[in-house]
């Protein structure tokens, strides 16, 4: 019995100790989005290279999908010159925070 309790406690501690990717924080994301806003934050903005089309809207998009897209740009699965450069400079936590910001209804500190 004592053994079981100790095992359980150890398992719980281990769970806490494993560096689980912290959930994204919308407020932290808002602090990191200056690189995004120049294109994604402007109505009707278009990419000019390698093809001309509208830069996708991100407001209300699923965080999980945004993270997957950023990871795909970072590892080269998805190709777009500017996005590859920007995503390449982001840490996993940055991606989580940015995705949480765009997925959430939080739009910045109250003015």
């Amino acid at each position: 019995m004592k053994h079981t309790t100790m095992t359980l406690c150890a398992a719980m501690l281990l769970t806490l100790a494993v560096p689980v990717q912290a959930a994204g924080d919308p407020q932290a994301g808002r602090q990191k989005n200056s690189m995004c806003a120049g294109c994604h934050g402007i109505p009707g903005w278009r990419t000019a290279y390698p093809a001309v089309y509208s830069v996708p809207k991100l407001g209300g998009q699923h965080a999980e999908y945004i993270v997957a897209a950023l990871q795909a740009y970072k590892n080269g699965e998805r190709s777009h010159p500017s996005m590859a450069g920007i995503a390449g400079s982001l840490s996993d936590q940055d991606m989580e925070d940015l995705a949480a910001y765009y997925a959430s209804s939080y739009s910045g500190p109250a003015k």
Partner: protein
Amino acid sequence: MNKTAIIFSILALGCSLQVQAKGGDAEAGKAKSATCAACHGENGVSATPSFPSLAGQYSDYLYHALKDYKSGKRKNAIMAGQVQNLSDQDMADLAAYFSKQKGLSIKY
């Protein structure tokens, strides 16, 4: 009807068809969207967080994404299969349909 009139009629018809192909017809897109809805949601808002919502997205972006899936430039096992049988017109129609739904927004 003289020859000139016939030629102009044909030219006009050609122009109107071309506009149609480029623009995409949302109503036609709706009729072709049943397969998409299974993952992206009936209203273009997906219930599964790994599948993107499409509602309100720019139609030219959606069209571009579909083209890239078909050409293989953008790789996704599910989407690669889905776009295989879509014509250029189908993609334009679907893009028009989803872009007209209410969902995504521009966030600064």
